[in-house]
Structures are given as C-alpha cells and as structure tokens.
C-alpha cells in the first residue's frame, strides 16, 4: 500500500508556537499533498509538493519532501487557535487521481 502515515497522532501546543507533523509513505509517488479537516467535514487542500521538489512554502506553511526516506514534514509557524484541525497527508497520483490518506495528526492550538 502507498498509504501515508502521519506522526504524531495528536499534538497540543500554545498559540504562537510552531507545529511540526510528519508523514511517511511506502512506494514511489507522483506528488504528496497536505490537507486540513475541521470538525469531520470536507478536507481543504493546503499544499502540493512534487516528487522532484524538496521544499515548498505557502504563507505560514513549509513542507519538505525526502523521497529517499519516503517522508515529508509539514511545519506551521506561529500557530493560531484557528489552526486547530486534523491534518492529513495524501500520496498517489500515479494512477490518475487515486490518493491514499493517512490517519492524520490532530492538532490542538490552545489560546
């Protein structure tokens, strides 16, 4: 299975601190994406990093990808209470648009 797995399963931090979550996967990928989900509803796309990229930034988000270790990390800087959500990595795209999601990291940002 290509399924990505996030680590840690849960993370609790204070507002203003940085949050780092990791994702590991098993097979070669076309790209890796990170999504956020609030309150068990629809997922929102955060950032996409392609297999030939090593780092990407978007606002307070920084994503790294190490294809040799089959791992990625998502860093949220200067976290806010509104960042409280579950974060998922998704791998795949080799087979058209079939993606595999991990079980997610549940982030709690305390005000």
């Amino acid at each position: 299975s290509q399924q990505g797995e996030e680590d840690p399963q849960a993370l609790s931090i204070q507002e203003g601190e940085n949050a780092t979550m990791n994702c590991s996967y098993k097979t070669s990928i076309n790209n890796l994406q990170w999504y956020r989900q609030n309150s068990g509803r629809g997922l929102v796309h955060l950032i996409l990093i392609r297999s030939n990229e090593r780092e990407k930034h978007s606002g307070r988000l920084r994503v790294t990808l190490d294809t040799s270790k089959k791992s990625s990390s998502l860093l949220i800087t200067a976290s806010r209470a509104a960042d409280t959500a579950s974060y998922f990595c998704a791998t795949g795209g080799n087979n058209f648009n079939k993606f595999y999601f991990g079980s997610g990291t549940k982030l709690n940002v305390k005000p």
Partner: protein
Amino acid sequence: DAGVTQSPTHLIKTRGQQVTLRCSPISGHKSVSWYQQVLGQGPQFIFQYYEKEERGRGNFPDRFSARQFPNYSSELNVNALLLGDSALYLCASTGQGVGEKLFFGSGTQLSVL
C-alpha cells in the same frame, strides 16, 4: 463559483437498505472521486470517474457502485447496508491533469442502524 456540493448532508438508514449519495463537481471539473471516512481515520478511496468512465476502484465490495453523468455529476450507491458502512462519504473533484489537488465537498454523514 460554487464548490463541490453533496446531498444529502445527513442520512439515517437501517441494515439491508440501499442508499444513493449525490455529488456535483466544480464547474469545468471532469473528474469525480469518492472517499469513505470512518470516524478517527483518514479518507479511503472508493471510486474515481473521469469523462464518465471509471478510472479507479478501491478495495470495497461490489455492494458499492457509482456512475458519472454527462454533466459530470456523480452518484454513489451502496446496497445491502451494513453497520460498518456508517461513515462520512466525501466527494472530490479535480481539474485536468494527473495527480492534481482534490477539491472536497462537505460530505454526507451516513448512519446505519
């Protein structure tokens, strides 16, 4: 522009019944995917349709079926419902290209009693 819309938002069924979930993709998107998300887990891929043809199927029993219509909207059907089918069913659409980002709807919460 409207995002991905799903209906209904909530549904309660009993074991053995059949259910149909509906999804309208973002205008211009030709690909629709369906995912099942059980509480506490990540979404699991069920089906993907592109240009009205099935392009991918996940590890789900034949009780699950789907189709895509000429206007690119889609339906997911589940027959002979089991308690374990209780989950959030998510529809996602994508524009052109392989492996591009998914735009998700808010999902249909299915409860099987």
